[in-house]
Structures are given as C-alpha cells and as structure tokens.
C-alpha cells in the first residue's frame, strides 16, 4: 500500500512539474480479486494489481487530460507533458471557471484489513459452503465473490489534497433448480458485514420455489418489487436526471419541476456520501467533500447534485458528486437512499388481491429520459400473487414503464432496506406496473 504521504508526494511531484496554470492530479492504486463459480464449480479465479494516474492541465480556459498506469518519475513527467500539450492545443471552454478550491474533508472509516487481504483459499472456502447449500436444496450454484482495496488520492494546484483507502467485498449468486432460478447479492466495505450462506439459502430457496413457471398474459398488474428491483428503478432516476448537467442540457425530468410533485408523497430519495449504511466516500474524484442532497422529498422535486464545472455554471458550490476528470457525463449521485416505510414484503403480499412479485430486473435500458420510461425483463424469481398469497411461479415478463409514474403509485414501503451498489432501498408495492411482453422461460 502506498499510504497517504507517499500518494500525496506523487501528486505533489506531478503538480510541481506541470507548466499549466492549474493542474489536478489523481492517483489510484489497489488490488482486487474475484472468484467466479458456475455449475457448482469454480471456473474463473482472478487477481490484479493495478494503478492509475490522471492529470488535468488547465491553461486559460483550455483543458487537457492524460492518464497512465505507470507511477515512476519518467512516466509521471510524460503524462503531465501530454496533458499540458493537449491543453495548449485545445480550444477555450468558456464555461470553465476553475478547479475546486480546498474544503475540509471528513475522515470516515472505509477500510477493513480482512476484506483487503481475503485470500484465494478464503474465497474458495466460502464458495464451497455456498455450493454445499445449493446442493442441499437440489440446486446448482453460479456467482462470484470479490474482495479488494483501493487507495485514492487527489490534489490540485489550488491546494486541494485528499486521500482515502477503501475496501470492498461483493457477492452475487444465481441458483438454478431445474426450470427455477433464484438470486441474491451482497456488497459492503467489509466482508464481515454479510453472511454468504444466508445469501445462498435465499437464492437456493427461491430457485426451488420458482420451478415450473407458468405463462401469464402481459398487462397492468400491481407489483411487489423486492429491493433488488427497486434499486434498479432508483438508479435509473439517477442516471436519467438527478445530475445538474442533465438539467442544464434540458434532458432531465427535473427540468422546471423543482418544487413540484413528481412522485407519491411517500417517496423520498436523497444522496448522502458519508452515510455508512451505503458505500461511503468522503470526497469525490475532484477532492470536493460529499454533501447530502435531498433530491425528492415527499414526492416533490427538490434538488440535483453538482460537480465543480456544473456548479460554477450556476454560481453554486459543488455538492461533491463529480465522477472523474474525463468525459462529458456530468455529476451523479452514487450513495442514494430511499426512505423506508413501515410495511414488510409479507404484508405487501397479504394485501394483494392479484399481482406479481418481482425479484429483480435484467438488461434494463432507458427509452425516454423526461418521461422516465425504461424497459427490461424480470429475472430469477417472478411469482403470481392471488388473494394475498403467492400461488405460482411465472415465466419472465418484459416491462415498459415510467419510473416516476410508478413511484407516484406506491401503496406500501418496507421497513427493511437492502444495500445495493448505488442505493440503499426498501421493497415496495406499486399499482399498475406495465408488463408489455413475455418470454419462454
């Protein structure tokens, strides 16, 4: 591990060498490993040690960017020269004002030694346990177990200097029992935060429960969406329009809607980079501290997130939601929370006369950003609910629906939430979900 001092020293060397008027340098270095299994066998098992150094050089209003994965002094000089040369040969970007100025960054705990150093033998033992659990249920196991760490440091010539080290562990599993499928995933900064066997039991039990699915006519149904599915809806909101750039370009559903109702009163969604219930980060890739942003409050559009570029454009301050120095995608919220309610999945099922329970979605894609219309398939456990009970598994269905329209029709929200990669969300029961097609399994 480099450590804070060495990381900031590398950045300082690059900044001191740069001939640009303003320079931002970020370095990331880490190790990650992933054990993958399918058909109840470990079939892929990988590990990598990698690094990245990114330099943003600013001359007037011209910007150049260059990256390398070599951290020796010559390579650092070469990449700085390249960024400066690109800046010199670029054209003015009139909207650019400045790189961020320094602000205090809160230190938060995001590193767990055990997670960073979990060995191939540790992972194999966990996977063996999950496969054994699958066998007990008569199921076949597939999935992956990953662990690793990353040090990230960013500094700029205006005095920003921030460092943090993160560990991350992830588990996904799809279990198959004849024609039935089940799913579970877990993610955390610490591998000790989740129980892989509990995840295996969840997926295996659902695979058994979803055997011999029957077809159902697509149409509008009340749905109970498990958190895996709800996270997908919330993440699409983020992608489609909860960043300032999407608003500034007029392609967000938030355009002209701030202060207006866009979802049901029971729907509140915010982003809080510091909240350890998600995957916390104390600062963004520009070194700007994370601010909490309440994006949708009691169904009312309230705010979007900013990086330095979009914030200066409106005379505001960045909320610490930059996603890196390159690209034209703009800021995104990445540690979102949806307000839980007081219900449970069991209550949702019990209160449903006729509806469909969806475990998760697959291959979801946006069709219309302002109407928040997306399409995708159900996967790994779709069930018919009749008269308050799950009566049979269903073959998978295609949905084409508006996220905000569905979030305007939420009847029940669970008390329990689940951490997903970008969001911590409850299960919900919503009216009138639009299924528009069906497949054969």
């Amino acid at each position, binding site marked *: 591990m480099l450590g804070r001092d060495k990381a900031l020293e590398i950045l300082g060397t690059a900044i001191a060498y740069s001939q640009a008027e303003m320079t931002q340098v970020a370095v990331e270095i880490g190790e*990650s490993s*992933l*054990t993958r299994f*399918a*058909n*109840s*066998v*470990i*079939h*892929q*098992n*990988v*590990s*990598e*040690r*990698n690094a990245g150094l990114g330099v943003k050089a600013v001359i007037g209003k011209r910007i150049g*960017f260059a*990256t*390398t*994965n070599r951290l020796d002094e010559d390579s650092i000089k070469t*990449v700085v020269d*390249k960024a400066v040369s*690109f800046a010199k*040969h*670029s054209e*003015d*970007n009139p*909207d650019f004002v400045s790189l961020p100025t320094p602000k205090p960054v809160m230190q938060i705990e995001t590193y767990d030694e055990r997670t960073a150093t979990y*060995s*191939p033998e540790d992972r*194999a033992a966990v996977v063996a346990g999950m*496969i054994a659990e699958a066998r007990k249920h008569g199921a076949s196991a*597939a999935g*992956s177990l990953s662990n690793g760490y990353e040090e990230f440091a960013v500094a700029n010539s205006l005095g920003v200097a921030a460092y943090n080290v993160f560990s991350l562990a992830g588990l*996904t599993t799809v279990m198959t029992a004849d024609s039935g499928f089940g799913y579970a995933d877990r993610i955390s900064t610490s591998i000790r935060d989740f129980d892989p066997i509990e995840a295996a039991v969840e997926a295996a039990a659902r695979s058994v429960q979803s055997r011999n699915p029957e077809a159902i006519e697509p149409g509008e149904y009340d749905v109970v969406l498990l958190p895996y599915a709800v996270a997908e809806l919330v993440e699409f909101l983020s992608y489609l329009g909860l960043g300032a750039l999407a608003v500034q*370009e*007029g*392609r967000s559903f938030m355009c002209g809607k701030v202060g207006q109702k866009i979802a049901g009163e029971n729907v509140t969604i915010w982003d809080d980079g510091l909240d350890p219930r998600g995957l916390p980060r104390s600062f963004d890739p520009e070194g700007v501290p994370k601010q909490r942003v309440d994006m949708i409050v009691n169904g009312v559009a309230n705010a979007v997130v900013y990086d330095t570029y979009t914030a200066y454009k409106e005379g505001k301050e960045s909320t610490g939601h930059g996603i890196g120095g390159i*690209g*034209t995608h703009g800021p995104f919220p990445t540690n979102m929370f949806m307000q839980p309610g007081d219900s449970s999945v069991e209550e949702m099922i019990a209160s449903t006369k006729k509806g469909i329970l969806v475990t998760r979605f*697959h*291959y*979801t894609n*946006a*069709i*219309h950003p*302002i*109407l928040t219309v997306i*399409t*995708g*398939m159900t*996967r790994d456990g779709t069930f018919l609910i009749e008269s308050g009970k799950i009566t049979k598994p269903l073959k*998978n269905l*295609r949905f*084409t629906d508006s996220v905000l*329209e569905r979030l305007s029709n939420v009847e029940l929200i669970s008390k329990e939430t689940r951490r997903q990669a970008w969001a911590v969300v409850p299960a919900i029961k919503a009216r009138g979900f639009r299924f*528009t*097609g069906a*497949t*054969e399994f």
Partner: protein
Amino acid sequence: MEDLTEKALEKVRDLGASYGDIRIVKRASERVEVKNGKVEGLVSQSDEGFGIRVIADGSWGFASSLMMDPDEVERVAELAVRIARASAQVEHDPVRLAPVEPAHGSFEFDVQQDPFEIPVEDKIRLLLDADGIMRQTPEIKVAESSMHFWRTETVFASTEGSYIEQTKTESGAGIEATAVKEGEVQRRSYPSSFGGDYAVAGYEFVEAWDLIGNAERIAKEAAKLLDAPQCPSDTRTLILEGSMLALQVHESCGHPIELDRVFGTEASYAGTSFLTPDKLGHFRYGSDIVSIAADATAPGGLGSFFFDDEGVPASRVDIIKDGIFVGYLTSRETAEKMGWRSGGAMRADGWNRIPLIRMTNINLDPGDWTLDEMIEDTKHGLYAEMVGSWSIDDKRLNFQFATEVAYDIEDGSLGQMYKNPTYTGITYEFWGNCDAIANRDEWHMWGVPNCGKGEPGQAMHVGHGVAPARFQNVRIGVMESPSEGETE
C-alpha cells in the same frame, strides 16, 4: 519481452502447472470530445501490464500486475498457481483444452494514416466544424462529436511453445444532435449512435465518413422529431437500416452463440442461451435467406485479429446456414467438450482480464435486394433507423429495441416520420420472418467498441457486417405510455 515471458512460463512449469500462458499488453488511446462548441474531452491514455493464466490441479488461476519486472513476474506466476489450486478445492472435472498448433511470429494490421500522428488541432477543428453546423438549428440544445483511437500491442506466449506478437490500430468517430423542447427530447446520430462507427483502420476512416457534410441533416431531423407523432402500436412489416440491424445481430445472434454462455458459465451475470447444443444442425433460427458467420479475418472489422488470446489462428466459422443454426463461438476449453478444435474466439480486454469467448465479426450474408427496392415492395410497413436503446432477456429470446427515428411505408413510399419507435419480438420468430436482405453494395462492417461481458467487467471491440433487411409481422410501437397518449 521474451525474457519476461520465459521467466513466467518457467516458473509456472516449476510449480507444477499443467498449462500456462502470459499476455503482455500495452494499450494507448486518444479521445477527442466536443460538446456545444467546447472541447470537453481531450484525453490521452496509456496502460501496460501482464497477466498469467494457468491450469493447476485441473483448475484455472489467473493473476496480473502492472509492474513489468522479473520479481513481480515471479510473484504473479506463483499467485496464479496458488489461485488455481484454491479453485481446485471445490470438486470439479479437470479442465481439458482442445489442441492447437504452437504459433510464432509478429503481425500488424496496416493502416493508411496513423491517427496518433494526426495533429490534435486538426481533429478538434473537424469536430468543432461539425458541432457548429449542428447548433445552427435552434432546437439543438446538445451537440456532441467525438473521435477515439486505440493502439494495442500484445505479446502472447504459452507453455505449449507459442510466441505471438500482434499490433492493432483502431479508429472511430461520430456526431450526435439532441433537440429539446418542454417535455420532449429527441436525438439523431451519424454514422451510428453511441459514438459513431469504428474499424481497424487509420484516420482515413474518420475522414471518409464526412461528419461535416451530415451535421445539418441530422440536426434538422432531430428538431423535426420533436413535433413528430408517437410511433403507432401495431404489427406490420419492418425494414431496419444497417447500424440498427448490426445491433439486432449483436444481441439476438452474437451473444446466444457464445458457447460459455450455453454451458452456463455466465449464468450469474449476463445469463445463458436458448441455443442449446441439442439444437445444433437442425434448429431453424431464421428464414432460408439468413446466413451468418463469425469471421475474425474480415478486413477492417473491429473483431478481427491474427490470433485470439489463446493463440488460436483467426478463422471464419459458419453460425447460421440458410436459416439453420450450425455453429458456435468457441474457446479451447468449450471446443474440447464438443470434440472440436477451437474456432478462435477467446479475447481479453487488456492485460488484467482473462480471455472469455467474445464475438469476433458476426456478419449477415448480403442478399440481392436494394433498400429502395425493399421499400417499393412494401405495402404497409415501417422503416427504422439507428439504435435508440436495447434490452433482451437472459437467454436472448425476448428483445425490445428502440430506434432514433422511423418512417411510415405506405404503398411502396416513405411517409410520416415517427418519434420514439420501438419494436419487439422473439429472436427466432423475428429472424424466421426475414424476407429480404440488401445486396453487397449496401453491406457495411459496423464497429461496436463497447460489448460488455464477464466479472470483472470487460468491454470488447466487435464487428457486424450487415446490409439493411426486411422482416414481416413485427410488433412495433409498444412503448406508448398513458402520459404520452395524453399528449397525442
């Protein structure tokens, strides 16, 4: 490099691995992005490292590192073998590989104009000119144009005696105009959506597309779409333009023929496939005129190479012949299970990823029509252009795609423009209803640089040679939502 590869292979042999290979990959890229008159991205990237893949105790292990020194090569070789032995802790059948002849040599694709030698100012000027033209149309709120270039140098060496060096240069560019008015956003792109078109080629490929000459047209089309009616919902004849058909081939043919998916090894992420081995040789995938091959030797194709990342020579493999499903994309491991030799489709996204079965160039044979003839021959249909969005189930059966624009076809002529077109179907039914394919003159190799697969994720560059084609009885316009209905 040979001393590093030798050290790695010697180490894995010493540690008792039954097979080992090392890939050293050096990749440079350059990206220029212009948005609304501003240079928003001018990015140079370079990346270098090595990965060692072994079989020990009958299981796979892989480890990689950016540090190109002998001590690190030794550490990584040891780690790869240790990982393989950890994999073997779980009960398994030993991995067996189909044979391949050891290969030697140095190979490079020729390009006319090295894109890395073209001054960056020239690239910026071309994009700014196209950008300026798009923004002359008042409704265009976001004009984007970009170019992307890659050079990848790979060394592959194996314990079976191969030592192969390959160099590949890729280029691509595109423009996109987004028109906005209250409550509506519409986009048109050129030459295809999501960044344009790409090829194994030099800067000449970018110049040939004439981005400037097409900027005004797509801007005006995007503006016109704002007031176009919603695509109706019904079942009719559908004619797809080439870049949209390329995606159709990609999603509904390219992915389900990956034999690792078929064997379930991608089950937890991308999914599996409906094209199970029992269907081989007799399953009707399409109509008689549908023939598709995986061709890693196709000139200019983004999925072309000399050898795959297992050292298997590039080849052309029949996938669909006269409508019948006849072949898969294979690796040495999956081919062995079928009693075959590998067709050479193992590709890795850089030094720090293992090779997976990936598409090469999945090409639809041309027919004997022209697009104009197809339209003239259609009584009631829809002509749809350019990818809007895509979604398909995890066995690759039920798909729904959106296009940027569509036009009514009535009595052989193009008519009303529609916004938000979508079409949906079941893969083999859709291809079974293909009744016309345009000829060789309209056939083009489209480059897709962002095909995702695997854990950790890998983005692959693949190609699709297609000509426009016609399909009967397609369900279109399924995205209408109640709120849209209210505005119509």
